[in-house]
């Protein structure tokens, strides 16, 4: 034994990845998974607490099969532990089918190019970093920042923009799969409360491994969640939004196993294969040709020491299609949601916006807001050095724009905005600056939206 690992000798039949049951002398049992074997031993990682396992009296029963999940549409509204067992007091799911939780890769030629937005109701996302169905877009948070509130707000407000807003609105096949890994009971209850509150509970599947649950079980939790999500999306035609929180806890569990195996540690002692391992989770987002559903991922992670180069955010960023970065400065200044749009990026945004999807001026407007805000931030920095007198009148106007942008566009508070409202909010801010400076927006869009009272009054429909 070594921490969460058990070496089992004298095994004759064993297969890679199969589940085992470890029978303890006191009659209890623990589940485990074979992660390596030779003709001399099998290496088993114990998913639950490994205390109580002693070398002499423990026996092991091999199941012959990898971890599987029973699936049927009845999983909607259900709650499971991190290893897929129901914890809501209801009977087990009557399976329509079973799937290996490891999944198999989507054939790249079967993928459909993502093209439809998910409206989250948050301007910093919908306006500047649009989330697209089939995308994986993580939230990079840090200790003390309200990532969970934002995620819950997205859950409350998100919709495909086609029906009414909100996951429970009629006419939408929209489902949420929520995987909690190592978060506290309080944090988890917050989410559960949100699901109930927003009426989304019936559209939600919850997998929860809490902070005081076994760490190693966490390695399975997202895989159960994604197996459920794939089933709902590709067998049942739902647009599924998967929230994975907190991926930093997941990675720490991965590190624990690697350390116990005495593997050669990589950066900050996370294993060298962490990229591949994370990819086996994040790449399970997408759309498939000829299928109506989709799997969209919104993983949440905590950047240790606010460090974006830490392996967890770094490797995540290398796999996901952009990132939403939260800012301590904005948070400190009371801006909610404190999304820093400069380092944030949705790489698939262009596929999900424009005429017929959001609006024809969306791209230009987003570029312009971004450019002015970046300029304003730069000037704010300069002002700190040279003082306000060092700035020209025009510079000051940009600096003030940045303040207003943070307060009014980003800092919308808890109320959701429609895409129209978000875009109009953007135009309202742009009108503070001279029309001839709006070089990133097509002239005819500026002509149509910049000046007239009718537009001002909010009549912005097509």
């Amino acid at each position: 034994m070594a921490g969460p690992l058990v070496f089992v000798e004298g095994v004759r039949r064993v297969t890679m990845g199969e589940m085992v049951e470890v029978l303890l002398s006191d009659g209890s049992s623990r589940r485990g998974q074979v992660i390596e074997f030779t003709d001399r031993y099998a290496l088993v990682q114990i998913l639950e607490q490994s205390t109580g396992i002693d070398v002499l009296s423990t026996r092991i029963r091999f199941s012959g099969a990898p971890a599987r999940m029973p699936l049927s549409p009845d999983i909607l509204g259900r709650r499971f532990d991190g290893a897929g067992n129901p914890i809501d007091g209801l009977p087990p799911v009557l399976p329509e089918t079973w799937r290996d939780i490891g999944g198999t890769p989507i054939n790249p030629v079967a993928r459909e190019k993502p093209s439809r937005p998910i409206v989250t109701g948050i301007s910093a996302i919908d306006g500047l970093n649009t989330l697209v169905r089939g995308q994986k877009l993580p939230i990079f948070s840090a200790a003390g920042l309200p990532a969970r509130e934002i995620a819950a707000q997205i859950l409350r407000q998100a919709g495909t923009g086609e029906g009414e807003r909100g996951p429970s609105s009629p006419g939408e096949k929209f489902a949420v799969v929520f995987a909690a890994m190592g978060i506290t009971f309080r944090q988890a209850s917050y989410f559960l409360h949100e699901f109930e509150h927003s009426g989304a509970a019936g559209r939600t599947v919850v997998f929860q491994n809490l902070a005081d649950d076994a760490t190693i079980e966490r390695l399975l939790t997202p895989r159960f969640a994604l197996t459920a999500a794939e089933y709902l999306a590709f067998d049942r035609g739902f647009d599924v939004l998967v929230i994975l929180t907190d991926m930093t806890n997941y990675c720490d569990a991965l590190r624990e196993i690697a350390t116990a195996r005495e593997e050669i540690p990589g950066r900050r002692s996370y294993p060298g294969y962490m990229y591949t391992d994370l990819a086996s989770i994040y790449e399970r987002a997408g759309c498939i040709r000829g299928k109506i559903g989709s799997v969209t991922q919104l993983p949440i992670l905590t950047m240790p020491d606010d460090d974006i180069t830490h392996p967890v955010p770094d490797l995540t960023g290398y796999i996901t299609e952009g990132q939403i970065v939260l800012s301590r400065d904005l948070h400190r200044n009371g801006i909610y949601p404190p999304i820093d749009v400069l380092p944030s990026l949705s790489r698939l945004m262009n596929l999900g916006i424009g005429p017929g999807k959001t609006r024809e001026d969306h791209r230009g407007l987003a570029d312009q807001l971004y450019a002015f805000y970046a300029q304003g931030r730069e000037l704010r920095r300069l002002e700190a050095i040279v003082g306000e007198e060092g700035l020209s009148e025009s510079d000051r106007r940009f600096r003030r724009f940045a303040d207003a942008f943070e307060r009014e566009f980003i800092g919308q508070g808890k109320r959701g905005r429609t895409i129209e409202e978000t875009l109009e909010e953007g135009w309202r801010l742009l009108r503070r600056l001279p029309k001839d400076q709006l070089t990133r927006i097509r002239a005819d869009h500026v002509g149509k939206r910049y000046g007239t009272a009718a537009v001002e009054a909010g009549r912005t429909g097509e």
Partner: protein
Amino acid sequence: MTEGGIIVRVSGPTVVAKNMAGARIHNRVLVGEDHLPGEVIRLEADRATIQVYEDTTGLGLGEGVTDVGKPLLAELGPGLLGSVYDGVQRPLHAIRAKSGDFIGRGLSSPPLDREKRWEFRPVAREGDVVCPGDVLGVVAETPRVDHLVMVPPGNGGAIRQILAGSFSVLEPVALLADGTALPMLQRWPVRTPRPFRRRLPPTLPFITGQRVFDVLFPLAAGGAAIIPGGFGTGKTVVEHSLARYAGADVIVFVGCGERGNEMTEVLADFPELTDPSSGRPLMERTVLVVNTSNMPVAAREASVYTGITIAEYYRDMGYRVALLADSISRWAEALREISSRLEEMPGEEGYPTHLASRLAGFYERGGRVSCLGGGEREGTVTIVSAVSPPGGDFSEPVTQSSQRIAAVFWALDPALAHRRHFPAVDWKKSYSLYTGAIDDWFRENVSAECTALRGGLMALLQREEELQEVVQMVGIDALQEQERIVLTVSRMVREHFLRQSAYSETDASCRPEKAFLMLKAFLSFHTLCRDLLARKVPVESVLALPFREELERMKELPEEGFRETVNALIARIVTEGGRDR
């Protein structure tokens, strides 16, 4: 085929089998009841260590292993263009037809369609004595690429018979005196470089269509460039732009351990996008080798070899081929993952100690060569690989080893990417060692002043950098008028010359003629400003000169008439300087 191997160990993507005496390193094997393909990577007594090209989940102790007796081979012949393969050349469309939207286990399908018939037009005649590389005949593989059917290495002699007509890839089209029947398809071990006659010096450019590269850091045809950069700095967009616009006859794109959705974009767009030079769909010159990050790591390791073998094959026909690898770091990580299972002594950051030599071996397979066979064909394989350094830190082993080999370094800078300045090329860190060798070509074919223009641009950027430091410390008021003009012009150059949006309809690609002419116009404007200031013209009136907007819109002008328009603009700028004030 030798059966009888027995699995005694499984760890990650590797398997150890006993009873494997007689197997050889790099032999292909079939592992377990599902016949998962694998490759022998180490032998000790009768034990073979095997890297398995599929997920090893479910493999059991004691299951069998069969030695195929041959190394991993690529199939080469008509039908490669337009194909999409995984890392070990399984055709992904055919696999989808077999197993659906998710890739099943133990599936195989021949890389080249066995049914499809190709019109073979013989070039060699009966009685000709042929050597490896000689052309037997031609197949119009796509409307833009003629596929030369060549005598494979290791064969030769008098032609006893040669056929004309329509054949499938396995049917013989020629018969040699020694009885060898040659079909259009040939096979080649992917880990062995294909032979050529001799190397040629890299004196011709590889035109990328990106101003910052072609003007500042040009790449030679047959050379190698690396694009290191942290996540989101624009490596993939550069690679995709090259796949679209680069001056090459054939593109082999290796998506090595990256995203599925990115491949989808290529797959959706390339059959529809046409390239301006031929007006044909891009897919007709493209081969995709796709092993996304969630596909098995051992196949990821093999993918770059599969890709480069296909590239060499088209090079042997005399084509200019580009091998675009995104990302070579993921290949190195696959190597590391496999080697850690072998319990080898790790080198720096856990990479195997042979990382540098393996990388060198890969880049060595690029080059400009005189091909085997008659007719003096000349072909090139140009390698451009993305590098994904952890934390964006270039001091790590993969960047370092690649940098020692590749003569072009296109470093991407996260600060520029955050400012949405794309391509986010850091002009201080980047370099090209080819400028000396290819400037003759540029001088003759593009611009007589190319070296001076490049120098002028670098000097301007350099000066801006110094001045920016001053501004950061004491504010813009500390600058002289001449210095302020430097900032103005360099800003114009950065925004409207170096910056080039991959999504612009007019500017996604730019021919070098246009690029150098644009640069000349910007620099003459700078000269004008300097002269006027020197003659005490107030800075406000200099900045109010009417040329700025025209300069900033140059990039959007159509190719047609560009030369005339911009030459006229330059002439007006020069005349303005001569005017009395």
